[in-house]
């Protein structure tokens, strides 16, 4: 995407939304959706643009969440500072895991498995380590002040997460336009060929891992500020690894708006299915799953790619006629 206009338009449109929507139910829905979109955007930079499919993005989300919570609760650090430290911790974890995995030359499913393993190891460590509160988890005290980064109004939380999503969108847009982005896509398409052309694949992948780590860690930091509680299953559980990869894949991996669209569709489907099925436990998940299968079936390149898929379907017969 060359022009910045669509990115700016989407950010502005989302920013003015709370002026028209007062319902806290809707705002809460949007806040959680944007949080998942942010986690997904992190995955998208590494997986969508870099082709490095991680199954364990919980390592970033969880580290961001725990660092934010522990610094506030155990060391009395200001919430805003703790939030920043959480994001830096995401970068550190990204560097360590990325260096270990990429130096060892792990690609494809091996890289996916090693990230999954890291997430599991961290989950087990967090479930027993005293500093994380072990099985009981860490609880951030309710303190609705700006300095504690807690707000009475859901709208303020919305704008906070939106500003993070906006930053992630701009970063992605910049990557797409930059030389680094071109290298990243080259590595995704054919790493050996890219290397032959002089691209330092290790540095490029490591760079993507660090940016990805910071973005997804920001989602984890936000989770703590919003829900004020984190334990090992929330932080490093498979749920967030799945959400982080599901949203860009559904929306369109390797596109700027993929994770945002994916998160909106996935969450809206979930809520819609809940409305249709009423109170029958689990039926909403069945409906949700069926619709999801249909989406992936008809548009394997994500919702953003749906236009191309549909155009392709309509054009193909004509092309075949011409060939015949």
């Amino acid at each position: 995407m060359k022009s910045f206009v669509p990115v700016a338009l989407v950010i502005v449109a989302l920013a003015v939304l709370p002026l028209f929507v007062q319902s806290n139910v809707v705002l809460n829905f949007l806040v959680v959706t944007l949080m998942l979109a942010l986690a997904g955007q992190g995955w998208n930079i590494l997986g969508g643009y870099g082709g490095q499919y991680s199954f364990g993005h919980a390592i970033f989300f969880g580290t961001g969440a725990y660092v934010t919570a522990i610094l506030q609760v155990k060391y009395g650090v200001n919430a805003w500072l703790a939030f920043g430290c959480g994001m830096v911790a995401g970068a550190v974890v990204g560097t360590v895991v990325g260096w270990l995995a990429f130096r060892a030359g792990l690609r494809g499913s091996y890289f996916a498995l090693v990230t999954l393993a890291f997430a599991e190891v961290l989950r087990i460590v967090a479930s027993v380590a005293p500093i994380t509160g072990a099985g009981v988890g860490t609880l951030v005290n309710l303190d609705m002040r700006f300095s504690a980064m807690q707000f009475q109004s859901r709208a303020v939380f919305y704008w906070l997460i939106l500003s993070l999503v906006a930053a992630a969108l701009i970063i992605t847009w910049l990557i797409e336009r930059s030389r680094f982005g071109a290298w990243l896509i080259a590595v995704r398409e054919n790493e050996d060929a890219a290397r032959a052309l002089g691209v330092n694949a290790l540095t490029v992948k490591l760079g993507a891992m660090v940016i990805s780590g910071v973005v997804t860690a920001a989602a984890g930091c936000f989770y703590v500020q919003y829900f004020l509680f984190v334990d090992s299953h929330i932080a490093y559980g498979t749920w967030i690894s799945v959400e982080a990869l599901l949203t860009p894949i559904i929306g369109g991996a390797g596109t700027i708006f993929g994770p945002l669209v994916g998160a909106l569709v996935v969450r809206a489907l979930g809520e819609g299915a809940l409305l249709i099925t009423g109170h029958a436990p689990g039926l909403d998940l069945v409906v949700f799953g069926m619709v999801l299968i249909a989406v992936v079936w008809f548009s394997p390149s994500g919702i953003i790619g749906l236009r191309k898929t549909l155009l392709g379907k309509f054009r193909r017969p004509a092309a075949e006629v011409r060939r015949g």
Partner: protein
Amino acid sequence: MSDTFSLSRRRFIASTALGAAAAATGTIAMPAVLRAQGAPIKIGVLQPVTGPLSYSGTQGQLGAMLAIEEINAAGGIKSLGGAKFDAVVGDAQSTPAGGTAEVEKMNAAGVSCIVGGYASGICLATTQAAARYDLPYVVDVGVADNIVTRGLKNTFRFGPGFGVIANAALENLVTINNNAGKPAKTVMIVHEDSLFGAGLAKLLNEKLPTQGFQVLETISHPTPTRDFNTIVLKIKAQNPDLVIPANYYNEYVLLARTMQQQQVKPKGIYSVLGGAASSYKFVKEFPEAAKGIMDCNHWFNPLSDKAQALKKTVEAKGQFFTYEVYLNYACIGLVADALERAGSADRAKVTEALASSTWANHIMPYGPTKFVNGQNEGAAPCNTQVQGNDIKVILPAKFADAKPMFPVT
């Protein structure tokens, strides 16, 4: 007759005028007037009915709905003109985020109170989400002590917390052993490795030696664990008088069954919040493995006719009478009592009535309720033992329907 008529007419005119005024002032004023005429009181029933905690959540929902049906059938809340409960059911999807989203919906739906949450993690998130709206919240199970130590004015827990349960378990173990002439001197602890098991093991390792017990070995295992053969072989080699397991349902069942298979028969198996030891399901499916096991856990008052009647109702539905059922049933009763005394469905008044609650007509062995910082001070666990394919209460003596059988072998 004419007096009655004129009074009725006046009342009619007055109520119509009030109604019109209420309608004119907006929708917020309307429910208050309608409630005065016995309009339904919305109550949130929040349980994790999908996800990993779905069994417990479904059981909890069953208990709450049974209580609501019963209260409605008995004429609703008398002080509110026989107002009936209108349950707003929510699914926390076994996550704090899912629970919070449901609290938002329940608040928007205008509930007067929320009951449930089940898991500590969910309760911590949902209670503070409800606190934003000064919405009273009664925690059904969540045993983490910090649920009620955060100073949230809207949060009440009817049942006991972890600290109370762990201390009672220790005291009762000493009592049982002393009364039997101190047959148990050596102990082995088998625990799962999260804070529930690990925390308990730490506490037991500190306190048991001071009570004359020798802890031979403490073995931890992750959840899930699907093979207990090695652990049971270790137990067999050490041959302790007492085995203390602290783990969840599946692991508990597997440990007990493996001990039975390898014919490891200590003088007693004593658990705290034992995943399976106070479960009718376990007793029914594996009666031999369950025989004689003792547990310190949530339990209903077996001497209460109401509790026994509820047990029959639940069993008639083909369900097991688990602690989720009767704790939620009791929590709804607590809210009904508060509403009755408050004479209003207003959230602030319900919170006030809950805080000053002295409710005694319930099915739990707690005595009259007394809330201090949201925790019911009378709440305590019971010691149970599997005797004759049934689960009996052996302590506290006031609620016991059987004597402890110890040592078992």
